[in-house]
């Protein structure tokens, strides 16, 4: 492991392409919502500025976000009897008659240059009270992202749960015929808009993993016809090859402090074991050994434990080992197959791929009681990833023979399907919360 070799900045020529010009890659469809979604009206925001209209329709973005959560049913604009933009213009009786429970109004005010303020108010229609009033500053480039942030604030006020509309999702696509397959690592906003191709290759790309600060992404690339682990900075696009040891270099997982990756390496002996790799010093620490396949590490919230998949008893089950080294302990016992653990944001559960009567499905394992709850209903579901608020998981499933993504709420009730325009979509990874 010579340092210059591992730290060699890779050439991007022909391989790396960052693009912001794609059409929406993911189309999102709610397949199951709550029984009674809360009726909400998001009135088109007022505008005071130089142009004919603001850069984006903030109210439409907010309404779409609330609808996508499955918990809210926004009113169609054409059904609105009034379109107030200030609190003084609101007549609650009209909204009450139409059964609206929550009313959102707002104004976009242009400041100097390309600066804007998105001012909004949220009302409880039945009580005739303001629940929230807020002013969100933005520039033109971040207008959409900040509109999602408005939706996050509204969602949190109404549900008590931090919103995830301004988060992002990374995933892998595979398109084209088998002999000319193109693999891409793509990042979109949580609503499927604004897709950016981070890496494109004629060889497989796997296992994207967000750094805890959301600024970097680690992944496995076969661009040199072997598995290697890269870390890429999202803003600049520059990247480092951090592990290209003999054999398998796979399954990168960031430590909570962002300083280490847990990885699965086969090295010389062809047998996968879990290691931690310090990104600054390049020091490798071996955590497991033996003939089993040990892979798919995931850190506990406090960084003290590493969960992983091992087939040391014959079939894959989840184990954990102290991150500083020590004895491994089996974690999953229910069912013949539990693999690829991901720790819930509250640290109380693991999402796993679980064999449910011959079907591979997403399940939650309660760590205190080791109780397993199956959440998905496909035949080949895999790669679960928690939204940072823990309320929802995204995972890969099949629609016919195509790979698509789906989300399911942690209570199993709200489901969505996210399909691409073409090809297979797989290995979704939900970003952390954006910095405030």
């Amino acid at each position, binding site marked *: 492991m010579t340092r210059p070799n591992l730290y060699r900045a890779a050439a991007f020529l022909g391989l790396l392409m960052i693009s912001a010009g794609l059409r929406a890659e993911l189309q999102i469809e709610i397949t199951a919502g709550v029984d009674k979604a809360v009726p909400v009206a998001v009135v088109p925001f007022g505008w005071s500025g130089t142009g004919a209209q603001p850069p984006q329709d903030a109210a439409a973005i907010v309404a779409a976000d609330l609808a996508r959560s499955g918990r809210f049913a926004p009113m169609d604009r054409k059904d609105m009897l009034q379109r107030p933009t200030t609190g003084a213009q609101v007549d609650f009786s009209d909204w009450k008659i139409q059964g609206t429970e929550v009313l959102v109004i707002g104004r976009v005010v242009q400041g100097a240059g390309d600066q804007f303020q998105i001012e909004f108010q949220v009302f409880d229609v039945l009580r005739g009270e303001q629940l929230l009033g807020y002013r969100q500053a933005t520039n033109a480039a971040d207008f959409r992202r900040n509109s999602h942030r408005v939706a996050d604030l509204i969602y949190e006020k109404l549900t008590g749960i931090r919103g995830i509309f301004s988060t992002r999702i990374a995933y892998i696509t595979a398109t084209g015929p088998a002999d000319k397959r193109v693999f891409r690592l793509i990042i979109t906003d949580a609503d499927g808009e604004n897709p950016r191709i981070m890496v494109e290759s004629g060889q497989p790309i796997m296992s994207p993993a967000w750094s805890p600060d959301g600024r970097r992404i680690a992944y496995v690339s*076969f661009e040199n016809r072997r*598995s290697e682990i890269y870390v890429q900075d999202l803003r600049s696009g520059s990247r480092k090859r951090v592990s290209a040891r003999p054999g398998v270099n796979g399954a990168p997982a960031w430590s909570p402090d962002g300083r280490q990756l847990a990885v699965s390496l086969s090295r010389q002996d062809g*047998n996968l074991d879990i290691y931690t790799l310090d990104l600054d010093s390049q020091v490798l620490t071996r955590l497991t050994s033996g003939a089993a*396949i040990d*892979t798919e590490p995931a850190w506990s919230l406090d960084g003290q434990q590493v969960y992983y998949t091992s087939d040391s008893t014959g079939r894959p089950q989840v184990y954990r080992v102290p991150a500083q080294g020590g004895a491994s302990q089996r974690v999953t016992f229910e069912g013949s197959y539990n693999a690829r653990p991901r720790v819930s944001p509250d640290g109380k559960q693991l999402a796993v791929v679980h064999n449910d009567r011959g079907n*591979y499905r997403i399940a939650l394992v309660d760590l205190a009681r080791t109780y397993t709850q199956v959440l998905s209903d496909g035949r080949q579901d895999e790669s679960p990833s928690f939204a940072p608020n823990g309320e929802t998981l995204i995972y890969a499933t099949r629609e016919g*023979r195509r790979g698509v993504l789906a989300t399911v709420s942690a209570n199993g009730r709200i489901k969505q399907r996210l399909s691409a325009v073409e090809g297979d979509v797989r*290995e979704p990874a939900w970003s952390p919360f954006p910095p405030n």
Partner: protein
Amino acid sequence: MTILKSVAALLTVALLAACAGPSKSTVDENAASSAGAQTGAVSSGVSDSGAGQGGAMGGSALGGPGASQENRVIYFEFDRFDVKSEYNAVLQAHGKYLSANPVSRVRLEGHADERGSREYNIGLGEKRAQAVRNVLLLQGAASDQISTVSYGEERPAVTGDDEEAWTLNRRVEIVYGQ
């Protein structure tokens, strides 16, 4: 079929060994079974099943870069990485070829079917490639002649989500000249 293959393999191997001259390894009919005993990865020698089936060998080499496509792919059972005995002859031939041609290089590409998690399948593909590697080493190949890579389920040979497709995707491909 298996017997025919095995006989052909032994003949091919004998020819290759003869070409390579006396300095290199000699053919040992029991090599496959002793390999099995040592690694646990290979079950015993020549199987007697499938006798009497036709299947002309056409004189093509079982091992080496001239081997037909079907003799450059080793298939595996679900969730397993032990090399089935039906491949003994083919792998013996490849091993002897490598032994007789020290400058020859081979790359073993391990694959899995699509079921289960992706990184675990990378592990499974690697185990399969290593199992084939071990057999080739026991047949006289040198370790620096062999490289391995696992593609897991990322590079299926055929698309499809049925047993037929899965069977064809659980494999190690033997690629010469790498």
